[in-house]
């Protein structure tokens, strides 16, 4: 039975990687702008459709599509920020959160319906020729495409980390997240930083969506699920903490899978959430809070 447990944990790890990547963008946007874009799940959905579209039209490999989905969603995100969320930047924190939730809700409805009109409501996914190939390690198999997705998630996060720590723009973003007024006094153009941060958050959603299309289904209605998961993951990891968020996502994925085995599949998410609450009561600021 032990190899089945390990197998289970491996699958949990691979799913958790997507939870983490799906949440990182939301965390970045919240950390920098103090805005909660509840249409984040819909942006993931759009990223998924980019990959499906490219695959259907030109048989483009989904891992190549990531290179398109990221920039495409960056532009979408920047556009959305410019048209909608830009108006909120001078509000108080409370008003920013409140109004960003409202706008995000309306946006989610709009994007869902547009997706139905554009691609119909069917569940879609991408199955490249190598889907289902596995790496066998003893009695345990690791699906290659999903492993690649996890590795790619790491690469993207590493890139994000380098960008945030080693570039002017990245430093400006971090400074703004730390202390907005201070950053403004230091001459950082807050408006542009916000635009870039929102675009980056959306791009991360796009990348996550493209990777989701490899292992899970994409349909216009999946947004809510991903937004809810992302909210739980970013709180578990500590708000605004990028790597904490990713690790928390992986952690949640593994816990859910393991508990499926221990308590029956029907209660897997319940156990995951219960563990979340236990962590929260022991560490009220999340697992990896910045003190």
């Amino acid at each position, binding site marked *: 039975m032990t190899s089945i447990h390990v*197998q*289970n944990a491996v699958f949990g790890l691979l799913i958790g990687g997507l939870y983490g990547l799906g949440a990182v963008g939301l965390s970045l946007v919240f950390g920098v702008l103090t805005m909660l874009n509840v249409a984040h799940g819909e942006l993931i959905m759009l990223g998924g459709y980019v990959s499906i579209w490219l695959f259907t039209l030109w048989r483009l490999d989904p891992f190549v599509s990531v290179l398109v989905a990221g920039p495409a969603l960056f532009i979408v995100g920047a556009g959305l920020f410019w048209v909608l969320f830009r108006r909120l930047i001078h509000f108080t924190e409370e008003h920013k959160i409140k109004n960003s939730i409202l706008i995000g809700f309306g946006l989610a409805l709009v994007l869902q319906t547009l997706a139905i009109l554009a691609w*119909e*409501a069917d569940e879609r996914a991408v199955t490249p020729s190598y*889907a*289902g190939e596995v790496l066998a390690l003893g009695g345990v198999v690791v699906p290659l495409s999903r492993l690649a997705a996890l590795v790619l998630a790491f690469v993207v996060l590493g890139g994000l980390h380098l960008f945030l720590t080693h570039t002017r723009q990245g430093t400006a973003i971090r400074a703004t997240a730390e202390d907005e007024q201070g950053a403004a006094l230091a001459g950082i153009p807050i408006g542009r930083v916000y635009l870039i941060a929102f675009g980056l958050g959306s791009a991360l959603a796009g990348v996550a969506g493209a990777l989701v299309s490899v292992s899970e289904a994409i349909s216009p209605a999946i947004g809510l699920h991903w937004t809810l998961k992302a909210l739980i993951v970013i709180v578990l990891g500590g708000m605004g903490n990028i790597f904490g968020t990713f690790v928390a996502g992986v952690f949640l994925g593994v816990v859910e899978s393991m508990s499926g085995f221990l308590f029956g599949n029907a209660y897997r998410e319940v156990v995951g959430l219960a563990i979340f609450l236990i962590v929260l009561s022991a560490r009220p600021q999340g697992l990896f809070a910045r003190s």
Partner: protein
Amino acid sequence: MQRFAVIALIAGLTLALIAPQSAGAPSGTIRLGAVVPLTGRFASGGAQVKAGYEIAVEDINARGGVQVGTRRMPLELVMLDDESNPTQTVSRLEALATQGVVAYLGGFGSDLHAAAAAVAEKNRIPYCGVAFALHSVHQQGFKYLFSPFIKSPDIATGIYRFLNGTIPADQRPRRVAIFAERTDWGRELDRLWTSRSTENGYQVVFSAEYTVGTRDFSDVILRAKAAGAETVLSLPTPPDGLAIMRQMKELDFNPRVVLMIRAPDAPSWTQALGKDGDYVLLTPGWHFNFRAPGVAELNAKHQQRFGRPADVITGPSYACVQVVADAIQRAGRLDPLAIRDAMAATNIQTVVGPVRFRADGTGAQPFVVVQWQNGTQQLVWPKEMGAVPFQYPARPWRER
């Protein structure tokens, strides 16, 4: 000023939208009310239902409408979207009732149907719905609910009969695993499949429940594999079905037969899974190769509109309108009660074959098995309806 403009815009829009709403049924048409999920999680199935209703109404009107007593009247379809939310289903059906509809047409999915059927019962308006197999809805003593669609008991018996009818006794996949989602329908079928197994010579070696929306089926699949299951019976929603198929491949679980109800219905199944979606069986209740009058015309119309023959749920939806129109004609007046009684006495040929209703409102529909073969849905049962050979056993993943 900008705000004032917004207020004026919204107020004007709201008034404009509400105002003509209260108008009663214009004389001269027969109003059929349909509440169908076109957005939300059932939107995919809802689209197939919508297509069936629309094409049927068009066809009947093209033939001059329905004879009501001495007049021929066209059908008028009043369709609303319920966003896959049963509260909206109820409130919109109530609104339709006040607009003079003489019959309801149902949506998609058991929970929406269960809500809708009860509203029909309450409002005493006959209700015809397809695309739900939950039998317990029919055990409430409802008098206004009619469904020319296969139900769980038909599926449970039918699948074993199909296997025994197509596979020689010494090659039958007798060890069965059941993947049941934790819903009333999941439990209903789990129970029925289990109780029908022994009498047909099968043995349920593994049965597991999971919640809808599960992403990791590795524990379920590994246990079924460990139990040596040769047949998998399941009724997943589309995303769950895709996940199960992919993970069965990844974990190299090679059942000889996989039945999935609902998930492989949509034509997008093969786009999503490619050749990995082959060999899967489905029992959607209908198929475009089904031999029945009117199917060819329906397929032609559908081809024209959507570029493919009619989808599996579109046929039964089309039949629903046929049944209702026939009942209205026999009732001879636009009285919901009279139409109900006429519907109970239905005996006509439709695109899903002959329709007759049992006392509980279920139709005794022929049991149809469809298999995904080389990326297309092929009718494999019953033989007399134009079936192609059943591909058995499913080829192991490694050899595909």
